[in-house]
């Protein structure tokens, strides 16, 4: 078997032992890697109902066959676990040197089980695994943690670490690597913290198993050059993802004031043009010629690397229109190891709940200094408010009550990324059906929705587009494990990816072979949720109810008086379920599961609910 090492490193943190599991072609071809591997391991090994922050949960680090191989944007790694934020399947990816090192150390995946009795970090070098006390870095931010470990092991190693957020079990804590790279929005950093695992350092020295090493090297390096060239010609990384902010503002899809508003006259102050003008450094993931990380000096003088999601949620959604202050909030999130999207939305929800009189408090929209204090409290779970904020909007709204659930901007417990879908039914469907909760990662149909079709359509073409993008973004790029930006931002043809995959594995797969795997992974992710929540029904696939509330419609601007309609949204969900072969509750049918070779998984889920 080429392309995979065939090895999974299994580390038990309770008794500090490790072993190397092997897997064969059947597993590799069925799940490929990254999200596919992580999901299958969690499905097979977790008992439903376990505490995501207890020793029974498992932290999975997984790469895919082309990860780490020199080819466009292959520096990514998937991190996954049962989510402490949503209670369902949770994963994310991040650019890190750990990707290449993991493969060179001889592993396609690493599973962390159990719970260390004391804070530790783990050092992995090829077959060697060592456990070190983390006393000197426990309680410190991710920047200090990285510096400390770089001093010991050198800058070239792969490091994945948590900050105070993960240590204190903040439910939207992430894992961080390199300058501003972070992954695992649904609290994967909290799972790492619950295991008392401060950091993972990894170094590998073996060759990555590639079927056609010379052919792959030549092709990969040439394509990296070409992607860099297209990036230059198009000027994409002048503003990287942040160009989208002014666009969202123009088309009334910007999150402002806890998503109660969709545009703002001051949005230009935090847009991509201002960001590029303030740029002091540029960062990127390994194996990337697009380097999308734009760093500015924040209000306190730190370098802070911003993208659109950070600015939309920590800036406009909080009515903060000073770029350096948005930079400060972003820097703090990175240092504490908190997801910027959930952190921003949670603070916005808190300010909104105060404004609505649902809870008493001093925080107001636009107050950057107070927002900084609150982030620190949330990261450390300080006091009643810190604890409340650390649990995210869904739990906060349940604790606060007074109707605040309606404006808690999450899906399935995961806060919504920076697109205000008051009047974007297709993008609302993308959030609603994302297998993690309110994430834009798996499907991003908003430009399609506004450019190619009628914005007010709830037709089957929108469901089809959401699924098409989920297959590519949430499937292909998550299981071969590569960054989607060359394709989505520069139009780098998808056909290149089976080419890389085949050179690495020696197989002759086409894109059509990949789509079946994407659909299989989607079906199993849904089974994972259903096994955790056996009373599953379609309301769990609904976006926040405030998007259906006519009193929340914009008073002015491009979508004045318009709002989503629930009965039509249900029709859109029907289109989606039908096209996926799922029943009216949103659960894959027996026929679908069988066609996707999920017989065993189907038998397991049938212990919890009936399948149609």
């Amino acid at each position, binding site marked *: 078997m080429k392309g995979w090492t065939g090895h999974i490193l299994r580390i038990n943190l309770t008794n500090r032992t490790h072993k190397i599991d092997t897997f064969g072609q059947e597993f590799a071809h069925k799940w490929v890697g990254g999200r596919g591997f992580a999901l299958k391991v969690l499905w097979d090994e977790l008992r439903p109902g376990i505490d995501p922050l207890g020793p029974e949960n498992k932290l999975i680090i997984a790469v895919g066959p082309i990860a780490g191989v020199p080819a466009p944007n292959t520096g990514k790694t998937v991190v996954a676990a049962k989510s402490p934020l949503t209670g369902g399947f949770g994963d994310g990816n991040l650019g890190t040197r750990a990707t290449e090192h993991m493969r060179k150390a001889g592993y396609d995946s690493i599973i962390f089980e159990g719970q260390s009795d004391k804070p530790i970090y783990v050092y992995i070098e090829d077959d060697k695994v060592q456990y070190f006390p983390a006393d000197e870095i426990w309680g410190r931010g991710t920047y200090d943690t990285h510096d400390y470990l770089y001093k010991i092991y050198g800058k070239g190693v792969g490091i994945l670490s948590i900050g105070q957020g993960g240590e204190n079990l903040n439910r939207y804590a992430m894992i961080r690597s390199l300058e501003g790279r972070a992954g695992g929005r649904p609290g994967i950093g909290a799972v790492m913290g619950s295991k008392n695992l401060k950091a993972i350092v990894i170094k590998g020295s073996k060759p990555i198993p590639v079927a056609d090493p010379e052919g792959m090297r030549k092709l990969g390096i040439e394509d990296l050059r070409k992607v860099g060239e297209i990036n230059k010609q198009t000027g994409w990384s*002048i503003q990287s993802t942040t160009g989208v902010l002014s666009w969202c503002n*123009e*088309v009334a899809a910007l999150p402002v004031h806890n998503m109660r508003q969709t545009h703002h006259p001051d949005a230009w102050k935090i847009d991509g*043009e201002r960001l590029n003008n303030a740029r002091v450094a540029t960062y990127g993931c390994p194996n990337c010629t697009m380097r999308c990380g734009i760093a500015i000096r924040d209000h306190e003088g730190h370098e802070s690397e911003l993208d659109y999601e950070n600015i939309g949620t920590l800036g406009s959604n909080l009515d903060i229109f000073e770029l350096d202050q948005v930079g400060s909030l972003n820097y703090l999130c990175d240092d504490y190891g908190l997801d910027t999207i959930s952190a921003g939305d949670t603070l916005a929800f808190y300010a909104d709940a105060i404004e609505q009189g649902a809870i008493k408090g001093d925080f107001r929209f636009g107050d950057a200094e107070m927002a900084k204090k609150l982030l620190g409290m949330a990261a450390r779970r300080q006091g009643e408010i810190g604890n409340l904020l650390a649990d995210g909007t869904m739990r906060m709204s349940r604790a606060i009550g007074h109707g605040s659930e309606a404006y808690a901007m999450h899906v399935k417990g995961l806060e919504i990324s920076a697109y205000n879908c008051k009047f974007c039914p297709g993008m609302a469907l993308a959030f609603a059906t994302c297998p993690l909760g309110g994430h834009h990662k798996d499907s991003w149909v908003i*430009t399609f929705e506004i450019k190619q079709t009628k914005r007010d359509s709830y037709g089957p073409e929108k469901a089809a587009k959401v699924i098409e993008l989920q297959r590519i973004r949430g499937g292909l790029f998550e299981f071969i494990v590569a960054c989607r930006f060359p394709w989505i931002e520069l139009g780098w043809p998808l056909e290149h990816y089976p080419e890389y995959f085949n050179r690495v594995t020696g197989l002759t797969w086409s894109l059509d072979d990949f789509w079946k795997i994407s659909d299989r992974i989607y079906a199993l992710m849904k089974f994972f949720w259903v096994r955790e929540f056996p009373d599953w029904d379609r309301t769990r696939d609904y976006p926040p109810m405030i998007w259906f509330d006519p009193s929340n419609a914009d008073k002015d601007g*491009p979508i004045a008086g318009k709002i989503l309609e629930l009965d039509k949204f249900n029709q859109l969900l029907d289109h989606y379920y039908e096209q996926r072969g799922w029943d009216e509750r949103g659960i894959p049918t027996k026929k679908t599961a069988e066609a996707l070779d999920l017989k065993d998984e189907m038998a397991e889920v049938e212990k919890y609910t009936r399948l149609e």
Partner: protein
Amino acid sequence: MPTIKITVKLIGPLINLAGFSEKALELPAETTVEEVLASLPVDPQRPKIVTRNGQAVAPGEKLRDGDRLAVSPIYSGG
């Protein structure tokens, strides 16, 4: 000849390619969207999203006084 006043807003790297971010234009009445696009120093082949006052607009549509035309490359949004 009657004229109209419109604003053109460029988004993302189009700003750097065209050398301006936002501009007020005075144009003959009945000018179409595609006529304005053709006058911009931006590659006509490049896929774009064009909106008028926040709504998608077809190239052949005529502009009206006070319109705001936003021209953006196609983003994925990260």
